């Protein structure tokens, strides 16, 4: 296991990819493009899965890709290939140019403003390759699954445990002179087990993910948590139809913030496909809510030095004191809205909602009687209207304590109201994703059950 700076072998590969990108940009000029953006990536990895104590699959991953966008005046075309040979590169450039020649002129099309491109490249500490042998990977997966299976007599079956490790190099450049690349890694361990009691089967899982394998939770801990999550679902009952307060556990609360981000994404705004049109400078959350993006956190899963177009990323607030302070914009969507890119081509990078003071137990106390949601199902979210209706499972809570598991019901409301009536954010922050949030309590949703 190593850490930054990037080892010589990877540096040499990065240099090779950089010259490939530079060659490709030159090729776009040769074929008549007036502007171009090129990205190349190489990735390798290993996935090892164990089930019922035995190895089930070992998958060796190794993939490459080149993607490019060309502009001919105000016309745009894109193409990609998994073949990085010079002949394939020329064909790919030709395909993109052919599309651009047929596309319509679009006054907003084009490369980012040169002044917005990243010029400093902070070391974000993203590369910790893990040269683990398949046998050792299987051992970790088996240990994790054993911990889950041995945790409780009601754990009756398993979907297996997987160890995944990936490392990759990514280089991007454009015809304005931007050319940069970096290495990153990502490792994870997950397990999913099944419990059975009184002829009811339930499944749940747990996983850990990190840039650096030393930051992963232990196999025993991952297994134990997965088993606990499965066991606590046994004996699930249905719920009758009602309206009540709802707490989204931290690992499902991130989806609520995801819908919010979807609604302030430039592409949805200029297409008028958002329930938050024209809300900049207006309250969309209660005044205690602070939401910001921190793209440069060391070792974090969402960290990037620049966005998908090479535009520098900067820490900034999206919501301050409940007021919407910034949209999420790429170069194109910004131009469509008459604004400036926020460095969000490709999405947000480490989205954080400031935690409150209560842990999940404290939130349950605060709620008194209501629903704790731990699983969501389906895609019943309409970003145009904000209408929200999803399948869910979780726990019924009375007097601040969990009474019994519940399932086979939906929760519904309108996202505009849901954001505005957010009651509290917990301090039980889930750090495993690109969105960092504690559990979130909402004033009231409609539960549809039997």
């Amino acid at each position, binding site marked *: 296991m190593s850490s930054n700076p990037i080892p010589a072998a990877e540096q040499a590969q990065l240099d090779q990819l950089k010259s490939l990108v530079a060659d490709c940009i030159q090729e776009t000029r040769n074929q008549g493009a007036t502007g171009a953006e090129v990205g190349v990536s190489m990735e390798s990895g290993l996935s090892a899965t164990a089930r019922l104590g035995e190895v089930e699959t070992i998958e060796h991953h190794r993939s490459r890709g080149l993607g490019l966008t060309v502009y001919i005046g105000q016309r*745009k075309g894109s193409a*990609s290939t998994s073949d990085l040979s010079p002949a394939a590169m020329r064909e790919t450039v030709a395909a993109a140019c052919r599309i651009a020649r047929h596309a319509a002129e679009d006054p907003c099309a084009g490369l980012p403003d040169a002044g917005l491109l990243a010029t400093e490249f902070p070391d974000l500490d993203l590369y910790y390759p893990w040269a683990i042998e398949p046998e050792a990977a299987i051992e970790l997966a088996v240990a994790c699954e054993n911990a889950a299976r041995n945790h409780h007599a009601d754990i009756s079956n398993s979907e297996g445990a997987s160890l995944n490790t990936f490392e990759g190099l990514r280089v991007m450049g454009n015809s304005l002179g931007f050319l940069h690349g970096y290495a990153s890694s990502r490792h994870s361990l997950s397990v999913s087990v099944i419990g059975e009691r009184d002829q009811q*089967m339930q499944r749940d899982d747990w996983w850990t993910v990190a840039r650096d394998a030393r930051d992963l939770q232990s196999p025993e801990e991952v297994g134990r948590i997965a088993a606990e999550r499965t066991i606590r679902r046994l004996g699930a009952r249905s719920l009758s139809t009602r309206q009540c307060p709802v707490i989204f556990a931290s690992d499902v609360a991130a989806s609520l913030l995801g819908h919010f981000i979807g609604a302030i994404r430039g592409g949805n705004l200029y*297409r008028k*496909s958002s329930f938050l049109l024209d809300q900049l400078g207006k309250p969309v959350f209660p005044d205690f809510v602070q939401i910001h993006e921190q793209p440069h956190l060391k070792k974090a899963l969402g960290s990037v030095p620049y966005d998908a177009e090479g535009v520098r990323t900067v820490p900034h607030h999206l919501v301050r004191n409940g007021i919407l302070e910034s949209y999420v914009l790429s170069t194109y969507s910004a131009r469509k809205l008459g604004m400036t890119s926020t460095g969000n081509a490709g999405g947000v990078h480490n989205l954080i909602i400031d935690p409150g003071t209560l842990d999940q137990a404290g939130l349950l106390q605060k709620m008194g009687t209501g629903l704790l949601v731990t699983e969501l199902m389906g895609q*019943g979210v309409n970003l145009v209207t904000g209408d929200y209706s999803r*399948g869910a499972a979780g726990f019924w809570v009375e007097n601040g304590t969990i009474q019994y598991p519940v399932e086979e019901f*939906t929760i519904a409301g309108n996202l505009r109201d849901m954001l505005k009536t957010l009651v509290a954010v917990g301090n039980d922050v889930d750090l495993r994703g690109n969105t960092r949030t504690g559990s979130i309590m909402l004033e009231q949703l409609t539960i549809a*059950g039997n």
Partner: protein
Amino acid sequence: MTSEPIAIAQQTLLEPAGLATGDLDRVMQNLLGGGIDTADIYLQATRYESWGLEDGIVKEGTHSIDQGAGIRAVAGEKTGFAYSDDITTSALMEAAKSARSIARRGDEGTRELAQTSRPPSLYLPIDPLRSLPEEEKIALLKRLDQECRAIDPRVEQVFVSLSGSHEVIMVMGQDGATHGDVRPLVRLNVSVIVEDGGRREQGSYGGGGRTDYQYFLEGDRASEYAREAVRQALVNLDAEEAPAGSMTVVLGSGWPGILLHEAIGHGLEGDFNRKGTSAFSGRVGEKVASPLCTVVDDGTLPGRRGSLTIDDEGTPTACTTLIENGILKGYMQDKLNARLMGVAPTGNGRRESYQHLPMPRMTNTYMLAGPHDPEEIIQSVKKGLYAKNFGGGQVDITSGKFVFSASEAYLIEDGKLTRPVKGATLIGNGPDVLTRVSMVGNDLQLDSGVGTCGKDGQSVPVGVGQPTLKVDGLTVGGTRVQG
């Protein structure tokens, strides 16, 4: 150029790399041997393009080429897998070496039987990307934009997308036999946003199949997509809050068959049942639906989006009866799970690409027609919901709970459709939802060719279908709590 799929596969996949079938044989010989039961080599080359219109102009398009080889070696229940995006002897040999490291030591393994011959093709070995000049692709998108706007002045935004792919595959099983397939696939979609007095709603419709772009120019097909997208959006402008709670639900014919895909389809995939993780495990021969219900998975329908002449393991696809008159008949299998369960593969071994392992997947899953007139079904409902169109769905295989989200729905009051209501998610329990089917329409329809199914991170095109169905008691996830 020949039109035999295997010859096209050799020309596309082997000849550019200077390879011949004999080279694959050598890789296979390296792959087999002590402790390996089965193995396969899968070669694939896919060219894909898409064109998109918004703001009245075709402002972008993409083109991609993806090719490579996936090599699998299986010992008992253990699978070793490696892939390469290089189709060369050395890359294949290296991948074979990685894959076969799964082998058990000093074990002989049981061999599969040789493959049957190739069935007739269900689609032509055509290249959709070349089936229409670029100018005409663009003209089609622009025409649909204008048609949408001409239907109603409340149409504010129109998005049209056209995509096509040309996929060539070749798979060599351990018996050394190679199977080839050339798989065209096209898709056209129209989405609109309508606005009236500050209220905005969307509507979307599309279709496609294993054919070329000429399909969309036949008759009135593309214009029908445009009209349908606008119609759905306008209906939703008048939609009221949806009801919340359990009620009688009538599901429309066609795409609402996603009910079957989620509620029972996934639960009947062989891998979950071999492992005993499905709510349907061990239930073959039991009653899982009302006697009105017969459900099949049929990969043999010519030209359909979910159809395949051979699956990704070279097995001819089939029409597999899943439920017959309410009784669970069988599961969908790939080779691995069929062998381990001691049954025959059903041609359901599918994979997203050479970078993924095959597993049991659905093709076109639908319920056969029943005796009832759809009108009669609506008229039989005193109070309930008629759900005509849907978005996506999801299922928890183990608990059996599934959801699917309506995008166009109406209240039924005293046997008549009255008011439109907003989209809502419906939730139920897979193993018993079909036992509550009390009427089945005589109007079986398949969807228009839009489905994509996700499982373990792998996406494959699928089809669904059903006649109009009446379900006595399904939970509707609206916001309006009834008094």
